C-alpha cells in the first residue's frame, strides 16, 4: 500500500478560496477592501500574463507597456460609442498583435537583449501616449471612460464591478492552468529548461516563445483595459516602468512555476503598499528590499515553500506506510 490515495483536499481548498473571494463584498468592513480586491484581480491577470512568458524562459520588463496600449485602445474605442465589453477583447487582441510582431523580431536574440528591447518598447509606448496629445489627451490622459455594461446592467460602483473582475481573473487562472497542462505548455517548459535540446527534438522554440509572449502580452492588454474601465481613467502614468517592476516582483516573490505562485505573489504584495502607507516614503524601499531578499533566500518564490513542505509530508507518510508494512 505505497500509493497514496488522491486527496480531495486541494479541491476543497480551492472551492473555499473561491467562495471567500466571491463573498468578500458582503463581509468586507468597507468599500476600500472591495477596491483592493478588484485591484488584486487585475494584478493577478497581469502577473499570470508575465508568468506565461516566464514559463517559456523569457522575462518581460515591458509588461506595463502592453497594459497601457490595451487601456488606451479600449478607452478610445468605447468613448467613440463601441460597447466596452467588446473593446476589452479588442484591446487584448491589439496588444497581442503588437507583441507577436515585436516578439518575432526580438525573440531570436538571447534573453538579455529581449529584456532590454521589451523595456525600451514600454518607454516608447509612454512617450507616444504623451506625444500624440490630440488623440490620447497627452499628460492629462483620458477622463470619463465609459463603464462596462453587460446586457444593460452597468458596472459603475465597486461592489458591482468586483464580481466581473473576479470572473475575469479566475477564467484567466483556469486557462493558464489548462495551458500549462497542454502539449504547448510542455513545449514552453522544455524551452525554458533547455532551449537547444528542445530545438534538437524538433520543436521550433522561437515559435513557442513568440506564442507565449503573444498570449502573455494579450492578457496584459485585456487587464489594462479592464482597469481603465474600472477607474474610468487612463494616463501615461498609469503604467510606467515601476508598474512593470511591481508585476515582476509579485511573480518572483510568489514563484515562477505553476499558477499558485502568481496567486500567492498578488495576495502578499497587493495589500503591502497599503499596509506600508503609514511609513510614507519607506514603502518603496521596503518593496525593493522584499524583492532582493526573496531572490536571495527564496529564489523559487513563496509558493515553492508550500510545495517543499507538501513533498516532505508525502515522503514522511510513504515511509511511515512502508514501516507499517514491514512490521509483521
Amino acid at each position, binding site marked *: 500500500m505505497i500509493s497514496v490515495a488522491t486527496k480531495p483536499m486541494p479541491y476543497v481548498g480551492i472551492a473555499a478560496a473561491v467562495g471567500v473571494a466571491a463573498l468578500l463584498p458582503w463581509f468586507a468592513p468597507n468599500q476600500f477592501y472591495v477596491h483592493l480586491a478588484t485591484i488584486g484581480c487585475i494584478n493577478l491577470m497581469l502577473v499570470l500574463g508575465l508568468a506565461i512568458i516566464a514559463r517559456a524562459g523569457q522575462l518581460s520588463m515591458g509588461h506595463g507597456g502592453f497594459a497601457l496600449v490595451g487601456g488606451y485602445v479600449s478607452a478610445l474605442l468605447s468613448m467613440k460609442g463601441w460597447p466596452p465589453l467588446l473593446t476589452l477583447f479588442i484591446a487584448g487582441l491589439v496588444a497581442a498583435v503588437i507583441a507577436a510582431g515585436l516578439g518575432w523580431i526580438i525573440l531570436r536574440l538571447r534573453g*538579455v537583449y529581449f529584456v*532590454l*528591447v521589451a523595456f525600451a518598447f514600454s*518607454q516608447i509606448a509612454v512617450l507616444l501616449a504623451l506625444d500624440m496629445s490630440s488623440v490620447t489627451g497627452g499628460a492629462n490622459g483620458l477622463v470619463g471612460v465609459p463603464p462596462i455594461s453587460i446586457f444593460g446592467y452597468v458596472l459603475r460602483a465597486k461592489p458591482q464591478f468586483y464580481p466581473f473582475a473576479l470572473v475575469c481573473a479566475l477564467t484567466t487562472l483556469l486557462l493558464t492552468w489548462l495551458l500549462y497542462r497542454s502539449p504547448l505548455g510542455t513545449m514552453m517548459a522544455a524551452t525554458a529548461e533547455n532551449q537547444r535540446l528542445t530545438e534538437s527534438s524538433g520543436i521550433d522554440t522561437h515559435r513557442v516563445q513568440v506564442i507565449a509572449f503573444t498570449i502573455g502580452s494579450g492578457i496584459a492588454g485585456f487587464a489594462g483595459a479592464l482597469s481603465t474601465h474600472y477607474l474610468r481613467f487612463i494616463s501615461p502614468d498609469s503604467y510606467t516602468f515601476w508598474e512593470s517592476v511591481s508585476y515582476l*516582483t509579485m511573480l518572483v516573490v510568489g514563484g515562477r512555476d505553476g499558477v499558485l505562485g502568481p496567486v500567492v505573489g498578488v495576495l502578499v504584495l497587493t495589500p503591502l503598499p497599503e499596509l506600508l502607507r503609514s511609513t510614507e*516614503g*519607506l514603502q518603496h*524601499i521596503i518593496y525593493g528590499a522584499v*524583492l532582493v531578499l526573496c*531572490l536571495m533566500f527564496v529564489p523559487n518564490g513563496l509558493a515553492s515553500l508550500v510545495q517543499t513542505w507538501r513533498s516532505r509530508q508525502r515522503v514522511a507518510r510513504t515511509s511511515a506506510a512502508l514501516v507499517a508494512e514491514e512490521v509483521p
Partner: protein
Amino acid sequence: MSMEIILVQTIVNGLMVGMIYVLMAIGFTMVFGIMRIVNFAHGEFYMAGAFLFAILYGSNNLPFFISVLLAVGATALLGLLMERIVFRKFRGNELNGMIASVGVALILQNSALLLWGSSARTVPPVISGVLSVGGIVFPWSRLVVIIGAIVAVVSLNLLIGHTRIGRAMRAVAQDAEIAQVQGIRVDVIFPVAFVLGVSLAAFAGVLMAPVLSVSPFIGLAPTLKAFVIVVIGGLGSVPGAVAGGLLIGLIESFAGTFVSASLSEILQFLVVIAVVLLRPQGLLGRKEREA
C-alpha cells in the same frame, strides 16, 4: 543665426550628450561583460554622483576637484557595498541578477528621495565664458563635459589595455573559469570591475550636474540610454559602447533641434530594431559562443 552656427552647436550638443552616454554605457557593458549582470541600478549611481556633487560643490562650496573626487569616491564605496551585499550573490545568474538590480534601483532612488527630497536642485556652472573659433562660439561649460568624458574614456582604455589588472579583467570577461585556472583572483576582479563601472556612472553624473538639474529621478533615463546603446554597439563591447553612445547622442541632438524630442526617441527605438534584425551581435560586438 546662420545655418552653419546651428549645425555646429547641434554637433557640440550631440557630442556632449553622447559622451555622457558613452560613460554610462561603458560601465554598464563592463559589468555585464565581466559579471554577467544587467544592472538596472546603473543610473542610480549616476544620480548619486550628481547629487553628492551638487551638495559638496553647490551647497558647501568645496573646491571643484575635491568635490569631484569625494562625489565619485563616495559613490564608488556605495557600489562596493552593493556588490558585497547583493550583486555578488547573483554573479552569472542573468535573470535573477537583473531582477535583484531592479530592487537595488528602487532602494537607492527612494533613499535619495527620503534623504534629499524630490525638488530639483541646480548646480552653479563650473566654468563660464565661451570659446570662439572663426565666428562660432562654444560654451566652455559644455566643452568641459566633453573633455572630462574623453579623459575618463582614454584612461579607462589605458587601464584595460595596458595594466595587469586590465589584462586580468579581459581574461575574466572571456572565460571566468579558465582565468581562475591561470591564477587570476576572480573574486577580486568582480568588485574591481563593478566599482569601476559605478565610478564612471558617478563621474557622468558629476559632469552633467551643472548642465542639467539634479533630482532623485534622473537615473532612469540614462539607464535606458545605456541599454539602447549596448544593444546597438554589442553587449560587452567597449568600442561598441563608444560608437553607439556618440551615435545616439547625435541622433538625439539633431532630431531634437530640427524635428522633435519624442521623434528622436522613436527613431532610436527603430535603430535598435534595425540593428537587432540585421546585425544581432551589435555593430561592433563579436558573436557569442553559446555554452
